[in-house]
């Protein structure tokens, strides 16, 4: 490819530092791009960003709030990432989140009373099962009939959210309430706070580390990687692709369901309409920005959690809370664009014999510009 005197050449390998540095640079550029839109809406970007950072990252209270906000995001990020690891697009984390909360909520609100740690564990698994089963619908359609999982998971979001809406406005609605929410769950099922931070964070760290080890060192992770890279070779090697589609999407759904668990037991302590609040979509951004590395997901989640956390403070300045989603989208687009520079290097084109060597790779582009009669 050639633009004017600049030519892009394909790189064969990417150094680790480049891999890390590239997204960081383009995340920063993404913030610059966001400033353009902030200005377009009539605000000064520097005070806005300044306020956001000081509020959500530079003091203990804000930081705790950011980590708590990041908690469901971590699980949604892991959920999307594990599916991405096998080239499956699960954009239904939002719905699986809701279904997890519904399953777990049903137990917490209406289930048998169990002693404290046991009830929490039962609820954890019920949330995971709820999310997993919901994802399994799309998984089964994909595995057996090759139906596009992207659209199905997305459609299931709307259905799950409407169902949650129905429950919270209908049979589950707390008495004497005007908003769509249930009563609070039993207090002994609350996730304990450690210095203000929800202990769910340890759950997130443990699960992320386990996932990391699973993907890197086990035959399961290896097979997922083979399927991602070459479906036909996976079939050729006798890897049960259908089984893996079912397992991985169910696991992905279960992780999103666990996001419902931490949200209900750790943050809001009840079930309410619109409980996921876009976390499922944010999960997509997180998974992409972290290149699906489970450990990096934890960090990036805190960054985006801080962004979400700080929306309250800029709203006081009159800035719409949608600034959060807007910045997320901008960051993702910016990093996608930046990926290009991981694959290509820039070469300045000079019309001397040296460049002839590069020419062979690029014969086609040559005809357009450089042919000499």
């Amino acid at each position, binding site marked *: 490819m050639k633009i004017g005197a600049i030519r892009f050449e394909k790189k064969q390998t990417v150094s680790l530092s480049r891999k890390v540095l590239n997204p960081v640079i383009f995340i920063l550029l993404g913030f610059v791009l966001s400033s353009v839109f902030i200005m377009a809406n009539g605000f000064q970007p520097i005070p806005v960003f300044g306020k956001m950072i000081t509020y959500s990252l530079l003091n203990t209270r804000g930081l705790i709030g950011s980590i708590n906000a990041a908690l469901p995001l971590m699980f949604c990020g892991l959920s999307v990432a594990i599916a991405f690891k096998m080239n499956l697009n699960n954009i239904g984390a939002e719905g699986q989140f809701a279904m997890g909360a519904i399953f777990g909520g049903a137990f917490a609100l209406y289930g048998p009373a169990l002693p404290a740690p046991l009830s929490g564990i039962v609820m954890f698994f019920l949330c995971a099962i709820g999310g997993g089963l919901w994802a399994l619908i799309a998984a089964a359609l994909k595995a057996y009939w090759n139906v596009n999982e992207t659209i199905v998971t997305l459609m299931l979001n709307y259905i799950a959210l409407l169902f949650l809406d129905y429950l919270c406005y209908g049979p589950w609605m707390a008495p004497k309430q005007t908003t769509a929410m249930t009563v609070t769950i039993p207090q002994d099922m609350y996730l304990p706070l450690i210095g203000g931070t929800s202990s769910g964070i340890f759950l997130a760290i443990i699960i992320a580390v386990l996932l990391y080890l699973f993907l890197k060192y086990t*035959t399961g992770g*290896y097979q997922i*990687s*083979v399927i991602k890279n070459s479906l*036909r070779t996976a079939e*050729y090697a006798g890897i049960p692709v259908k089984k893996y589609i079912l397992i991985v999407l169910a696991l992905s759904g279960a992780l999103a369901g666990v996001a419902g668990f931490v949200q209900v037991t750790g943050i809001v302590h009840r079930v309410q309409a619109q409980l996921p609040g876009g976390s499922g979509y944010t999960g997509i951004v997180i998974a992409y920005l972290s290149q699906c590395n489970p450990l990096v997901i934890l960090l990036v989640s805190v960054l985006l959690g801080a962004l979400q956390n700080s929306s309250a403070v800029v709203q006081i300045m009159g800035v719409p809370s949608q600034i959060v989603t807007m910045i997320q989208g901008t960051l993702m687009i910016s990093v996608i664009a930046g990926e290009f520079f991981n694959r290509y290097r820039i070469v300045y084109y000079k019309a001397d014999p040296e460049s002839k060597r590069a020419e*062979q790779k690029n014969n*086609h582009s040559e005809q357009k510009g450089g042919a000499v009669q």
Partner: protein
Amino acid sequence: MEKTALLEMKGITKKFGTVLANDHIDLQLYPGEIHALLGENGSGKSTLMNILLGIYKPNSGEMLYKGEKGQIKTPKHAAALGIGMVHQHFALIPTLTVAENIFLSLDHCSFILDQQKMENKIREYSEQFSLEVDPGAKVWQLSVGEQQRVEIMKLLCRNCEILVLDEPTAVLTPQEAGEMFKTLRKMAEHGKSIIFISHKMNEVMEHADRITVLKNGRVTDRMLASDADIDRMAKAVVGERDIEKITIRSKGKTGELLIDAKDLRVLNDKGLVALHDISFQLKAGEIFAIAGVAGSGQRELAEALAGLRKITSGRILMKGNEITKTNIRGRVSKGISFIPEDRLKMGLIPGMNMKENTVLKEFRGKAYSRGGILLSKAIRALTEKHVSDHDIKHGGLDLPVSLMSGGNQQKLLIAREINGNPELIIAAYPVRGLDIGATAAIHRTLLEQRNRGACVLLISEELDEIFELSDRVAVLCGGKLMGIRNTSETDYEEIGRLMSGESA
């Protein structure tokens, strides 16, 4: 020849990096002649033609076309001048009809497509050059031979004066090839000039008017077809170097019955019958070749044996045990290995590293994983063993295999597939697109495997390869088994006849 040349290429030189692909090549082409470019793979024939077509730009040299000097800048420019090429891989769009494909290739046609006019034009050319093509048929429904005719038709509809055909007979049966040369002759009689690229000396001698032989990017000989003989051409093609003859043809003792396939019926990807109830037996210690033009059911046969494709009816016995319904993993553990035809699409994982590719079939084994955890040291050791055993050149065990050369990729794949001494090795086109060195190494490996007592099922479209390696040969045509012969008791002609569907 007294006529003035239609096209003259003078001193054409093209460098790729440090490799000299074309070294001061001169070529004259006269109106109404069929000109053959003869040479081995990599001798520079295709490069020269790509320069003529404007795909490559030469480093030096000049061209005269109809007496005018100039350089052909782009394929479009070449087309405008009346120069067109039928590539080895056809540039047809399968979902469109023949007429639509031809419309696409025309530079000047009305915005709203005039189907009727086009169909008439196609019929007219069909008759004139006995080039049978159905304008309304969808391309994916056509046989390879018919698709080639569409490609030729495209050039005729564009009023090309110079037609270049790259290895036109590679995909045809001998009989189809004969038909095609008749068409070419008719076109030449109508004043068109034809260049065809080939590495088969017989067909060049038989069908061309003049022959130019290339070797290592240089013209080594030029002759009239009437003056040509095999010895002279062979000397120009191969040079003084002797071809390394493979000498381990010492026939091992063919052992007991290994595979007994009865009435196999298998469907292709389109759901049509690809193999019509074929039966054959494979014995240990033999190389059993499958001959046939491309798309005769070879791929389906290989995949059915490997367990990748469902067998609709019939059964396969391996040493007397039924394996018809055994899945891929089951067959691998029974000792069936498979070297697929397109290694980068199936067989290797281009984006993963050598170690990960090496362990693809064995990662479940006790030696390479414990309790679901991969044993990276053992995997590395296995990879290193393959590298030294098969002399695989690589940039590092941790780099993706897509960075390796084709020959080394194939060596790695074969090393993996023969590891653990399989009893049946299915090798589909194992040396396609490889250089001479890699080809010889792979042929040697296959012979070693046979001598060890394995059965090698060799699928190939090169009769030379089949006759050189195999003990028996079966011929497929249109999914039917035309016959099985002992290689020592048959000849090219008989196999050629079987390939074209004439039962013996």
